[in-house]
């Protein structure tokens, strides 16, 4: 009985420790972003940086992530009676303002890949308004 309780406590402890790690450095997508293999695009989806070697595993993860994004955009777009592309573009504006870390690459509205550096802050797409 005591042993079972101890095992359960250990298990819960391990899970609690593992969960935040998954969201941080252990996340292959975040790793690939910081390595410059993939990046955010002005269309609201993730893209592959040209010339980068993309593993099949990473490709699958990116595509899965984009499918989930599209589902989110589609649902909210229907609620607001706008097009999916417009909803995606609105999210891209927020992403470009707050979710591109230093050193990460991103693709601007003209299709050009850029990198956020200390001297070159993220250029927000022109359709974002303010």
């Amino acid at each position: 009985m005591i042993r079972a309780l101890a095992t359960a406590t250990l298990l819960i402890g391990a899970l609690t420790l593992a969960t935040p790690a998954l969201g941080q450095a252990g996340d292959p997508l975040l790793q690939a972003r910081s390595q410059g293999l993939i990046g955010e695009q002005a269309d609201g989806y993730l893209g592959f940086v040209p010339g980068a070697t993309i593993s099949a595993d990473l490709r699958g993860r990116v595509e899965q992530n984009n499918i989930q994004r599209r589902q989110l955009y589609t649902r909210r777009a229907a609620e607001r009676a706008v097009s999916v592309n417009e909803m995606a573009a609105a999210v891209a504006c927020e992403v470009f303002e707050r979710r591109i870390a230093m050193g990460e690459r991103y693709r601007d509205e003209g299709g050009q890949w850029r990198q956020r550096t200390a001297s070159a802050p993220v250029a927000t797409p022109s359709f974002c308004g303010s």
Partner: protein
Amino acid sequence: MRAHLRSALLPALGAAVLAAGCIPVQIQAPDEPIEINLNVNIRQEVIVRLERDAAELLDENSGLFGGTTP
């Protein structure tokens, strides 16, 4: 009685649909070129209006997007 009404109604409906299809529709070319610039303005307006929705989507699905950065 009801069946009789339906049997009379269906052909009438069919005839109406057929007749509607036969009415000639005249399409006139617009005199002035269509204003395309308008679309850009509407688009930007829509995106500004969606700002709060976009922020909400990001906060509720932080696993799908990168973390908040300074």
